[in-house]
Every structure is written in C-alpha cells, then in structure tokens.
C-alpha cells in the first residue's frame, strides 16, 4: 500500500517524472494529464515496490505504459513500434565545431522533433537519469540496443540542429577574450 516512504520517493522524482511525460507528449496539456494519471495510479496501487530503485523504475514504467495505452487508443501505437528512425542506417555523425555550439532552447526544440522511440529512450537516460542497464530493463531491450538508440537519437538531434537556424552560444574562447 502507498505509504509515507512512497510519498517521499514520489516527491523526489516528480520533476523528472513530469519531464519524462513532457518528453513523451507533444503538448503540455497531454503531459500534465499523463503525469497526473500516473501519480494517481501509483497512489492507488495495492503493492508498490518497497525498494527505492525498484520503485523509481516501476513509476516510470507505469507512466510509460499509460502513454502507450493512449497511443493505442488513438491508433498511433504504430508510430512507436514501427518507427522508421529505428531501422534507418546509422549515417548521421556528430560533428564538432563552432556551428554546433547551440543554446538549450534549440536543443529542446530539436528533441521534440525526434521520433517517439528516440524521445523515449533519450528522456529515460537524460531526464530520468537511468543508466543504460536500467533503461534496458525498463524498455525490455538489450543494453546494446539502448546504447545504439541513444547514439542515433543524439545524431538525429545534431542533424536537426544543423538544418535549422539556431542561436549560437558564445564560444568559450570568445568569453575569454
């Protein structure tokens, strides 16, 4: 049963959980709805995990499953399961240089243009703070697949950023001058 310990754990993770919901959904209202649904279901769950690590994984999985249910309801689950970005050859390559110094707002905009599957895995690692092993467990995928998806997602983001006008951050050497 949901108790004070679970309450404390929820309090600790709520921002990241909401961030994950924002990453999965394309609009804030849907993210808020998803987040609230997940919290309520967590409170009502008869046997939530009593280990903090397990509880965190369980909570993110709960929210993700709700998201998948909504995709299924809206007949959009195929966009996740058969994401062409997952099957595409790994052609994009991160490049360095001045053009790649971008601000975080642009990064976020690029993130929201990623496919659902890429947003999903990247959000678990970058927002949720999960290790590759934990993300693999949560997504029921091999660790190598998670590693590959993370890399492809970032490459795709870099490509998006390279194609759109972005506001350059002051480069380090400019700040030093």
């Amino acid at each position, binding site marked *: 049963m949901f108790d004070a310990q679970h309450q404390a754990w*929820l309090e600790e993770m709520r*921002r990241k959980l909401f961030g994950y919901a924002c990453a999965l959904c394309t609009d804030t209202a849907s993210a808020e709805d998803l987040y609230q649904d997940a919290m309520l279901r967590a409170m009502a769950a008869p046997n939530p995990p009593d280990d903090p690590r397990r509880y965190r994984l369980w909570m993110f999985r709960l929210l993700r499953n709700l998201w998948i249910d909504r995709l299924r309801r809206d007949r959009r689950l195929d966009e996740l399961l058969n994401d062409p970005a997952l099957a595409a050859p790994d052609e994009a*390559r991160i*490049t360095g240089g001045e053009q790649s110094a971008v601000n975080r707002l642009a990064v*976020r905009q690029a993130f929201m243009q990623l496919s659902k599957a890429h947003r999903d895995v990247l959000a678990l690692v970058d927002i949720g703070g999960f290790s590759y092993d934990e993300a693999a467990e949560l997504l029921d995928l091999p660790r190598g697949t998670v590693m590959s998806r993370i890399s492809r997602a970032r490459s795709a983001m*870099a490509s998006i950023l390279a194609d759109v006008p972005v506001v350059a951050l002051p480069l380090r050497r400019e700040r030093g001058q």
Partner: protein
Amino acid sequence: MRPEMASDARLSAYVDGELSPEDAADLARLAVIDPEVAARIAVLHQLKAGVADLGHGEPPDLQMPDLPMPARRAAARPVPRANGGRRGLVLRLAVAVLALAAVLGWVNLQPGDPVQTEPGLAAQIAGHDAWARALERDGASPLAPEWLEGMMRATGLRLVHAAPVRWGEQTEVMHYAFVGANNCRLSLFEQPGAGVGELALSVTIQAELLTARWQVHGFAYSLVARNMDRERFVTIAAAAHDVTHARAPAGAALIASLQAARQRCSA
C-alpha cells in the same frame, strides 16, 4: 586511431558515464590529442544538458507539503467552456490535483489498526458510527441546511440528519450526516468556540477510516467516513473546507470536480 574507438555510440556512452574506467580513460586521452573528438564530445554534452533541462520543469499545480491551499484554489479555477474535451480534462485534473496534493501534502496515511485519535475526534468518530447504526435501524429524517446543500448534492450524498450533539459537559457540536448510494455515509461535525486562528485542512487515513479536520472563522470542523474512496473523500473535504471558509455555496468548478470524483463506497 581506430574509427570505432570514437564512434558516436562510444562517445555518447562516454558522456553518459557508461564506459568502463579503462575505455573512458582511453577516450579522454584521445580527446586531448584530437580536437575533433573533443569538439564532438562537447556537442554531446550540450545535447545531453539540453534534454536534461526538460526535467527541471515544475509539475502542474503540485503542492509542497506545507503549502496545501493553492492546490485547491487551482483546482477550483473556472473551467474553460469553449472546448468540451478540454473541460473534461481540466475537471479530471482538478480532481487529480486535489487528491495528489492531499496525499503529498495534507493526508496523513497511517497503518491500519489500532486507531489512535485524540479524545475529541474519537468522540466524533463514535458519533458517526452510532448515527450510521441508527440509520440502519430507524431510517432517515431529512433536514437541509442551506450552505451545504449544493455541495453535498454534487458529491452524490444526501443530507439526512442535522442536530446538535453534546459530548461531555461543555462541548456541543453540530452533527450533519449524509448518505449516498452503495452505503456511503459521511458525517460533518461543526464545533463553535475554536478560537480565531485558522488550521489548514488535515486528512488522516487509517485503514477504512477517513477523517479530515480544519478550523476556520472560530469553528472547528471534522469530516468522518468509513470505506469511502480516498480521492473522493479528499475532494469532498477540500470542498467542505472551501465552503466553510468562504461561507458561500461551492462554485461551479468545485461542484463539477465533486461530481467527477464520485466513486462507490466499498461497504
């Protein structure tokens, strides 16, 4: 340099701290001597930081434990009427926020028995139980105080009893009792002479027993129910608190949230 040593996947794993210490050290050495690798790592760090930034937003209308009031105010905000779907969402959110803020803030979840309460509340719980038993035996005798009517009707509960009750030599408490479908029974106790200070709403859940207490305008209020859906009870408690605080009937949005929170009682 072997190409695979600085593949995107390895560099990503490096910025995520997922390489072994030996591999990470190799890559760090490579970054020192190869500016392009260093630049790619820098880009990946920026990408990671930008995405991580998404996780720093404030969740909607959520309350810290010591600030319960704004959540209910937010939940009671006027509901947009232009879009029916959005309205439903807002209502469900209002209920969700109420319940969530309650659990994160006001609700004191306690293990099952034994039920331990202070004497005044214990008397009120006993009063609620005695009335519930008498209702089964004698049936209802409806009365209808104005200020509660709309709010409680919205919850699906019907006022069936309103009478002063005396506990001890001095304490006289007004007892309002409500019934609903599926054996839902709820008591509201209003005790005058509570002083000028206000006490925030506090909800306690002990197994099947749900109680809520607050103090406003010189009255101490207690709400008692058994086997009621937790979210519904918290929503009712918040609404009752608001109408006693405002000394006015519940607003449309609050009534809508109460209607949305209707759930069957389990006993």
